[in-house]
């Protein structure tokens, strides 16, 4: 058993729902107890869909347990086929139905239904949401792809691709697809279809006619892409075009497979991000300490942007989905940080407090951790709340995505000029510590004038009595901007302990500063 308050991922059947809900003409029959319909509201509320997810639940109750539940399942199957007339039906069990062992696949097969049935085995006590989505999509492709539909000889025609991975309830999937299609259209590459988002079972049947696949979200699309590599000999582009550098790489990879000139999409790309980042106003971003956590794909992409495109210093990198931990480990090694692979938010909180970054890039959960610790934060990955399914166009991918990312990440930081003023005029009341980081100031309660504005209040408890610090050194410490003060305090204390100094006076403070100077 695992004690858990927050989970980064839902159960695997929620992943299957994300695939079914993304598609057209697909229906998902889920053997599940009363109450599991709660997951509908993720789609109707967080993603604000105007239609019910195409999911029928058997909603069995205690009095149905025993033989009755199998009958309930078959009745529900007949019912939903008649009412919704889907082109294909996914059938599976949620965690409780898995325990009562009714075997949805066998029950559906015995009914000899008129539409294709895709049985799903999603082990709820082992796996999670992303895995469920990936496995469901893979099973759909495996069951529906028509092996007789294969690509024609390339002579004269435009190259054609499938875009794999976008789904319902995906972080910015809607707008990412638009950006990627824009790039492909500049390259003169046609899109066979995007799947699961917007694809129908009929589309999937013709998946073989594309020349190659583009895997936008490996968490959902890669399993299917690997099968297509084997069965249809379709190569796959696996560069995820998040960030300017990655987008350029993506364009070159696509152009190479399509046999077209990458310059078509590389020249005149409409990207403002590189200039914004080079302009002198961004100089203060140099070396800002940033902690990155999310799903592996977004975390790795964010780390690269942070280091190579914004000039931040990466102080932490991690992901919650173990399946892709290898990518995160590799990136962490490249940037010289310790990888953090965990689905325990308390561990993430500890790691953030320990590294005291100036900016946290993460999920909804990290947003709350950062708020609690008084740090700046931007959201880069699921799970996200309703505000991260915005009405406006806000991709993460492609050149427009890079523009969006620049604005989103820089916005929560104290602006350069503001920071300068903060240091110059820190005795003036407008710039006092109580004002806090700019994006918190308007609504957050005023912090008391003492040390409590520090990023990691937990860690200073041991020294809160000030026994080691002389009054003079304490006063000096308070002159250091609050967002680096916690680190300064810890460094100084570590230095004093290392040097065996009985008290921390002005000299110790500045000796430590010199010691840790970069």
């Amino acid at each position, binding site marked *: *058993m*695992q*004690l*858990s*308050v*927050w*989970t980064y*991922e*839902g*159960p695997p*059947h*929620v992943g299957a729902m994300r695939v079914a809900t993304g598609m057209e003409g697909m229906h998902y029959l889920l053997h599940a*107890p*009363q*109450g*599991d*319909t*709660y*997951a*509908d*509201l*993720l789609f*109707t*509320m967080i993603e*604000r*869909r*105007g*239609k*019910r997810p195409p999911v*029928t*639940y*058997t*909603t*069995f*109750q*205690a009095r149905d*347990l025993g033989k009755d539940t199998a009958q309930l399942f078959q009745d*529900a199957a007949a*019912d939903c086929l008649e*009412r919704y007339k889907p082109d294909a039906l996914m059938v599976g069990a*949620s*965690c*409780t139905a898995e*325990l*009562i062992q009714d075997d949805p696949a066998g029950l559906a097969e015995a009914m000899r239904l008129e539409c294709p049935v895709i049985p799903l085995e999603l*082990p*709820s*006590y*082992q796996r*999670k949401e992303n895995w469920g989505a990936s496995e469901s999509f893979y099973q759909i492709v495996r069951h529906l792809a028509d092996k007789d539909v294969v690509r024609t000889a390339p002579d004269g025609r435009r190259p054609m691709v499938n875009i794999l991975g976008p789904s319902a309830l995906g972080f910015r999937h809607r707008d990412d697809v638009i950006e990627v299609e824009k790039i492909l259209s500049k390259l003169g590459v046609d899109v066979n279809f995007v799947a699961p988002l917007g694809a129908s079972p009929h589309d999937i049947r013709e998946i073989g006619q594309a020349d190659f696949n583009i895997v936008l979200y490996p968490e959902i699309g890669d399993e299917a892409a690997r099968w297509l590599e084997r069965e249809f000999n379709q190569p796959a582009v696996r560069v995820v075009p998040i960030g300017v550098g990655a987008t350029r790489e993506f364009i070159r990879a696509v152009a190479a497979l399509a046999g077209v000139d990458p310059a078509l999409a590389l020249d005149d790309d409409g990207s403002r991000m590189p200039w914004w980042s080079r302009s002198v106003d961004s100089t203060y971003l140099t070396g800002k300490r940033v902690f990155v956590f999310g799903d592996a794909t977004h975390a790795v992409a964010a780390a690269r942007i942070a280091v190579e495109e914004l000039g931040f210093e990466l102080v932490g990198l991690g992901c919650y989905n173990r399946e892709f931990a290898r990518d995160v480990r590799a990136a962490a090694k490249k940037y010289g940080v310790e990888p953090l692979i965990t689905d325990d938010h308390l561990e993430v909180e500890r790691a953030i407090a320990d590294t005291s970054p100036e900016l946290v890039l993460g999920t909804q*959960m990290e947003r*709350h951790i950062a708020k*609690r610790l008084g740090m700046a934060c931007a959201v880069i990955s699921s799970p996200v*709340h309703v505000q991260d399914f915005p009405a406006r166009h806000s991709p993460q991918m492609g050149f427009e995505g890079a523009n969006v990312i620049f604005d989103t990440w820089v916005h929560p930081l104290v602006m350069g000029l503001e920071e300068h003023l903060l240091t110059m005029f820190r005795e003036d009341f407008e710039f006092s510590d109580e004002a806090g980081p700019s994006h918190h100031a308007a609504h957050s309660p005023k912090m008391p004038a003492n040390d409590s504005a520090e990023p990691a209040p937990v860690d200073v408890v041991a020294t809160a009595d000030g026994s080691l610090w002389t009054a003079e050194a304490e006063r000096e410490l308070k002159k250091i901007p609050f967002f680096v003060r916690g680190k300064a305090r810890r460094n100084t204390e570590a230095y004093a302990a290392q040097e065996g100094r009985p008290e921390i006076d002005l000299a110790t403070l500045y000796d430590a500063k010199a010691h840790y100077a970069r």
Partner: protein
Amino acid sequence: MSGTLTSPPIAVGCSTNVVERNERPILRERGQREVFCGLTGIIWLHRKMQDAFFLVVGSRTCAHLLQSAAGVMIFAEPRFATAIIEERDLAGMADCQDELDRVVDQLLERRPDIKTLFLVGSCPSEVIKMDLAKAAQRLGREHAGTVRILNYSGSGIETTFTEGEDACLASLVPEMPAESADAQPSLLMVGSLPDIVEDQFLRLFEELGIKNVGVLPARKACDLPAVGPNTHFLLAQPFLGETSRALEDRSAIRLEALFPFGAEGTTAWLKAAAEAFGVDEMHFNSVVAKPRERAKRAIEHSRAQLEGKRISFLPDSQLEVPLARFLGNELGMEPLEVGTPYLHRGLLSHELNALPQSVQLSEGQHVDKQLDRVREARPDLTVCGLGLANPLESEGLSTKWAIELVFSPIHGFEQAGDLAELFARPLRRRDVLEV
């Protein structure tokens, strides 16, 4: 004292033939039910009982449900969590009871402030027949003196939404101390209410001269009120069938009344207590007159928007019947279908009598068929869950999402206007938007 008990007058829609009116046809349906499970009750129960912790023994789905329902609250050191059952627990590689002991120890070490721990059963734990009652006893002995450990089920296979509160409170009843033999008559208010509402009611009882008023659940789960044959109890919520029975098993006497929604419901509810405690009628009227007038005035603000409008309720919380009665009788709305997950005729007899005869009652759900009826009737307002609200809005049907009715203060005189406003707001918004 119990000898003075009389059936309180029915404020509205009083009928000479109670039996016949109670036997109106009820549509009973089975099929897909678009409802929450009882675990959801934890979201408001943990705010009420500040020294209690709720540990769900269940799957990742249960944890996911709680965080989806709790929204932003999950981050403020919540007093609930899930012990997620894993493969090794099921495969018999780990003894479930040992694992649970380990998790409970881990939890209590982290949170030494916890005085009552509820082990909450879920569908998975019920299906694998994990004996949480025995676990609660065993752990209770181990931690005796510091933490009380109880158990109830909030599983979807057994409970619907608010029934989770019923199961929780019923588990507290055997823990209530016994009334002393010479106890004065006491009143017990049952059902978790927002603190501000609870305080208003306690003030009113005091003004009425009713002494010894207890509350279940108390704000601290360790301060349980006493119960016995001199205890009269008033249900503040309609979904407390099990709790009511458990209290009656301990010889407490249930006072029958309308539920305290709106000016009339609240008056009838208070009146039931006043009569049981022999409060002089003149005194009752003088205490109630002012707040009752205030409530009526506040309700009037929404009348123009709501009068004559047709409303349908999809099943959710069992609040549907009393709310339909309030909207029908005090605001002139026309309830079409009133769906409820479970209809407790005994607890709702006064409500059913007061509900217009034209109303179609339905119990249980076949959600597709019920939506067909909604689409055909096209009510002005449909009360439904969040899984259905936006889809119905996009079909041009105005909705009021039901969960808000469980989270907002809506009981009593002072909230009557707010309650009406909850229903008027979506209609006003529909009128005001020009996009």
